[in-house]
């Protein structure tokens, strides 16, 4: 059964400002900006836009304990048609090669398939960030077939190959449904050598600790999913949990917040700074507003004031260039992307 979202349970942390306040009040050994300054001479700036990451909204069939979006079945925010069209317009006018579609469960958006089809027609690489269980619901059972037909890359969440760990993070019964969905994706060739259909899995730690070595975990995942379930996939991405939204609430409630933030700060790795994903990504909110990443989006930290603020403002080359060279907006949560081996939507960065 899905948990109530912060919004629905009237938690003060449903407000991004309240989350920012908690993070700002933590007595960290140093600020993220100081850590970056010690690693390189210049502040963080974008180095172009390779990926347009579009968040279609907060609606989701699940409500995971660690969700940084506070997504769930009770959320109603979905991207309006005009914003979907504006995203497609930017893809058509720009050299941005990758459309990364996320949510919520982005497949629940009525324009999801239209967006995929049109972006693929433009020749863009399309990624669907899929929670897997959506493909087991009657209305979405043909999702693997549709995604395969349009050569969409699937990035799917599976925190653990152990059922109890996955269910602890994502809800009772999620593991079993996820395995069923993975079997369906494999049936259509996803993750199968030589098929050209990419199926990557994502694991977030089930608790207040950093991810293990991505390469070591990938070996475990491949061995165990094959041995226990006969399943295959391409790559495993390890992603550090960000101290935002429901994960932030859990950290605070469980008394882990100060120690976890201390761990992120202590594990700051200067080698991760040049490759942080915000330098190559532009994040679009459900309402069209622009952000450096999905995490800034959830904390309501918009692009630096000098840059255009909405996807509908990206009407010409000059606006695109301003976005592509923008100064990145940072905060204490950014330590999540620079701890240890680094973290991004594509997994470890070093």
């Amino acid at each position, binding site marked *: 059964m899905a948990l109530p979202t912060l919004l629905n349970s009237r938690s003060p942390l449903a407000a991004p400002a309240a989350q920012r306040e908690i993070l700002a009040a933590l007595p960290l050994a140093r600020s993220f900006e100081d850590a970056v300054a010690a690693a390189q001479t210049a502040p963080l700036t974008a180095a172009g836009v390779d990926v347009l990451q579009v968040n279609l909204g907060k609606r989701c069939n699940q409500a995971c304990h660690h969700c940084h979006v506070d997504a769930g079945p009770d959320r109603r925010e979905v991207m309006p048609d005009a914003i979907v069209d504006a995203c497609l317009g930017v893809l058509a006018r720009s050299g941005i090669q990758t459309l990364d579609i996320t949510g919520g469960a982005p497949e629940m958006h009525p324009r999801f398939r239209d967006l995929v089809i049109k972006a693929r027609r433009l020749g863009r690489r399309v990624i669907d960030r899929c929670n897997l269980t959506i493909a087991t619901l009657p209305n979405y059972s043909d999702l693997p077939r549709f995604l395969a037909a349009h050569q969409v890359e699937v990035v799917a969440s599976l925190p*653990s190959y152990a059922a109890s760990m996955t269910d602890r993070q994502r809800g009772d019964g999620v593991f079993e449904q996820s395995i069923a969905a993975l079997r369906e994706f494999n049936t259509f060739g996803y993750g199968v050598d030589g098929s050209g259909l990419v199926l990557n899995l994502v694991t977030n*730690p089930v608790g207040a600790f950093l991810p*293990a070595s991505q390469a*070591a*975990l990938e070996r475990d995942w491949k061995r165990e999913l094959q041995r226990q379930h006969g399943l295959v996939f391409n790559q495993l991405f390890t992603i550090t949990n960000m101290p935002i939204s429901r994960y932030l609430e859990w950290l605070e409630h469980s008394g882990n917040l100060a120690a976890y933030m*201390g761990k992120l700060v202590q594990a700051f790795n200067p080698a991760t700074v040049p490759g942080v994903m915000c330098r190559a990504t532009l994040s679009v909110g459900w309402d069209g507003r622009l952000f450096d990443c999905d995490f800034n989006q959830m904390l309501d930290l918009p692009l630096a004031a000098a840059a255009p603020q909405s996807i509908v403002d990206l009407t010409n080359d000059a606006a695109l260039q301003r976005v592509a060279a923008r100064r990145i907006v940072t905060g204490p949560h950014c330590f999540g992307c620079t701890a240890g081996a680094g973290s991004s939507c594509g997994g470890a960065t070093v």
Partner: protein
Amino acid sequence: MDTYYHPPDLAKFGDIGKDAPELWKKFQEWYGAVFAEGALTEREKALIALAVSHAVQCPYCIDAYTSGSLEKGATPAQMTEAVHVAAAIRGGASLVHGVQMRNHLEQISM
């Protein structure tokens, strides 16, 4: 309540180097080398450390290597088995001394 063990003290471990910095430096270098990947993986070493932490009953070490084992990709099932190994050795170590008891019993009995 006052106690000899305070969880925040683990973060002060480095204070032990204050009056013997060279020894602390040598310990750190050696410690780092011990836990680096070698003939054993980092995960195997973390699980050994977790088991030994229980055998020597060091609360700091138990906290550190519970997190450490997870961060090396160990599962709760593997960690629990490691603790059972420590417990079995401790239990077995007591029990095997029973042979000494039997020997002495034989010695002094008619």
